[in-house]
C-alpha cells in the first residue's frame, strides 16, 4: 500500500482549508477551516507514522488534537466575546488593529 495518495489527500484538504481561511468571512467558518487544516496535517502525521513504522507520528497527531481542542475552546470564547460586543461574527469587522 502506497502512502502517497494519503499525503496527496492531506495536501488537498490542507489547501482547501487554507483557501477557506482566506475567503470566508464568518469567523466560525474560518475557524472550521483552520480545523480542517489541522486535521489534514493529522492525516499526514498518521500516514507517516505508518510509513516509518513507529508511533511517534500518532503521538504527534494526538498532541495536535489536544492543542486543537484547547484552541477551539479559547477561540470560540473569543468569537463569542467579539460577537457580544460587535453583534457580528465577520473577521473583517475586527480590523481596528492597523496602521
Amino acid at each position, binding site marked *: 500500500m502506497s502512502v502517497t495518495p494519503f499525503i496527496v489527500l492531506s495536501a488537498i484538504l490542507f489547501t482547501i482549508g*487554507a483557501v477557506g*481561511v*482566506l*475567503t470566508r*468571512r464568518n469567523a466560525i467558518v*474560518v475557524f472550521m477551516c483552520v480545523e480542517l487544516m489541522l486535521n489534514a496535517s493529522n492525516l499526514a502525521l498518521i500516514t507517516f507514522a505508518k510509513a516509518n513504522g513507529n508511533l511517534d507520528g500518532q503521538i504527534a497527531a494526538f498532541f495536535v488534537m489536544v492543542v486543537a481542542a484547547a484552541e477551539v475552546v479559547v477561540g470560540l470564547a473569543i468569537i463569542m466575546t467579539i460577537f457580544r460586543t460587535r453583534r457580528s461574527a465577520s*473577521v*473583517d469587522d*475586527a*480590523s*481596528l*488593529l*492597523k*496602521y
Partner: protein
Amino acid sequence: MISTAIDVLAAEGGHSIPLVEPTSAGSLALPLVLVIALPAVGAAILLLGGRRTDAWGHLLGTAAVVGSFVCSLWLFLGLLGRGEEERQLGLDLWTWFATGRWEVKLGLLYDPLSALFLLLITGVGALIHVYSIGYMEHDVRRRRFFGYLNLFVAAMLVLVLSSDYVGVFLGWEGVGLASYLLIGFWQHKPSAAAASKKAFVINRVGDIGLSLGVGLMLVTFGTTSFDEVSALTSGASAGVMTAIGLLLLLAACGKSAQFPLQSWLLDAMEGPTPVSALIHAATMVTAGVYLIVRSQFVFEYSDTARLAVAVIGTITLLMGAWIGCAKDDIKKTLAGSTMSQIGYMVLASGLGVAGYAFAIFHLLTHGAFKANMFLGAGSVMHGTDDDVDMRHYGALQKAMPVTFLTFAMGYLAIIGFPGFSGFWSKDKIIETALAESPVLGVCALLGAGVTGFYMTRLMLMTFFGPKRWEPGVHPHESPKVMTFPLVALAALSVLGGLLLLNDWIVTFLAPVTGEAEEHHLPVPPILISALVVLVVALGVALAFVLFGRREVPREAPTEVSFLTRAGRNELYGNEVNDTLVVGPGKQLTAGLATFDRAVVDGGAMGTAASIGGLSQALRRAQNGFVRSYALSLLAGAALVLLALVVVNLA
C-alpha cells in the same frame, strides 16, 4: 653645486664651524636653575594666588626678576672665570619624553650666547618690571599683569637656555602665550582681544616651521638636541640643510615679525606699553634672531638658506622703515622701527659667520635703546592720558624733561649718532653687508637713512614745535619709579658700544658663532662709517625740513602720496592676508558647514529618511484585515515550497 662650494670651503680650511659640546655646569647649576625657577614660581604664585596676592603681587613679581638678574650676573661672572674651551655649560634636568630612538631631554645650555641673552632679558626685564609698578598703578588687575610678565620672563629664559629644539619650542610657545595674554591684557577692548589672537595665530604659522623642522631633524639625524645635531650636520646633504634652514627661518619670521609674517607686530601695540617695550621690542621678537644664530651649524651648510635669511631681513628692514615714516601713532612708529631693526639683525645673521656676532650685538643695543624709547613713549602716554597720536603732542620737552632727555639718548642711539651704541652695532652690520653682498649692503644703508628720517620726525612731532595737546590734557613728568628705568636704559643706550671695545663681543661669542676671517673691503672702514653717518644726516635733515620748520597739522592730511598711504596701511599686509587667506578661509569654512550639513549629515539622515518613508509606505500593508495577513502568510509558504521543489527538481 652648493654642496661642492661647501666642500671647497671646508677643504680650504676656511673657518671651522663650532660644535655645541657642553661641559658640566658644576657649581653654576644652582643659579642656572634658579634663573628660570624664580620668575616661574613668581608667576605661579601670582596667577594661582588670586586676590590674596593683590597687595604685594607687583613687588613679588619684580623681586623674582631682579633675583633672576642677580643669578644671571652670577652665571656671567662664573662663565668669564672659565677658560675659553669650557664656556659651554650643560645641565640635563630630566628626560622629557622618549620614544623609539628619539629622546628629548629637558636640558639647559649656558654658553656666551645664552649669557648675553640672559643679561638682556633679566636686566631689561627687571627695569621694565620696576617701570610697570608705576605704569600699571591704577589698573585693578596689576597683580595679574605682573604674573604674566613673570611668566614671560620664565618662558623667554627657557627659550634661550634650552639645549634641544623641542625645549626651545617650549619656551617659544611660552613667550607666545605670554605675549598673547599681555597684548590682550585690556581684553575688554575688542581691538586688543583681536590683536592678541592675531599675534598668536600668526606665530602659530611660524611654528609650522619649527614643528616640521624638528621632524626633518629627527628623520635626518635621529635627534634634536643642539650638541648632537651640531655634530652631525656636516654629514647631511645641502638640500636637507637648506630645507631645515628654511623651516627654521619660517619660525623666526613668525616670532620676529619678519616678512611675510610681519602684520601682527603693529597690532600688538594694543598691549600696555611696558609689554611693547619688553616683549615686542627688546626680547621676544628677537627670538627669531636667536634661533638663527643658535642654529649656525645648520645655516653654515646652506648658502641658499643663509641668502634667504639675508633677503628676508633686508625686505623687512625696508618695510619697517617705510611704515615707521607714515604712522602717526607713536607706538606703531616705534613698532615699525622695531621691525626694521630686527630686519637688520636678521640680515646680519644671514650674512653668516661674519655677521652673527654683530646681529647679537645689535640685538643687545637695540634691546636697550628701543626699550628705553618704548618706555619713554609710555611715559609720554602716561602724561597725556593715554593718547598715542603724535599729532596731539608737541613741545613736551619742557613738560617732561627726564623723559625727553632719556628718549633723546635712545634716539641718538637708533639713528646711529657716532659714539652712541646704535652707531657701533648698525655700522658693523652695514659694513659687513657691503662686504658680503653689495646689493643688500646698499639697502641696509638706505634703511639707515630712512631710520634717521622717521626717528627725527617722531622726535620733532613729540617733543618740539608748538603745543597741539588735546583740551584738558596737562602733560606731566612720570613718577620716579618710572623714570629710574628710563635713566638706566638711557645709560645703556649711550654706553652699549663699549661691548665692541677691543672686539670683545666678537671674541666672546666666537665659541658659539665661529671666528670670521677678515673680510676684504674695497675701501677703509672709516670711509664706510662716514658714509653711513652722511646718509643718516641726510635723513635727519630731510625730516627737519619737512617737520621741524613747518606746522604739523593736528589732523592727519588725507591728500597724501601713495608712499604715505601704503605706509599708513602697513604696506597692505593685512589686506593681503585678508584676500589670500582670511577671506577664502571664511568662505571655505562656510562652504564646509553647508557641505557637512547637506552632504555628509544629509547623506546619513537622507538614508534614515528614505527608510522612514519606505516604512510609511509599507505600513499601508498593515490594513487590519486578518485575511490579508493570512494571504501573505500563505503566499510566503507557497514561495518557500516552490523554492524547495525547484531546488529539488533542479
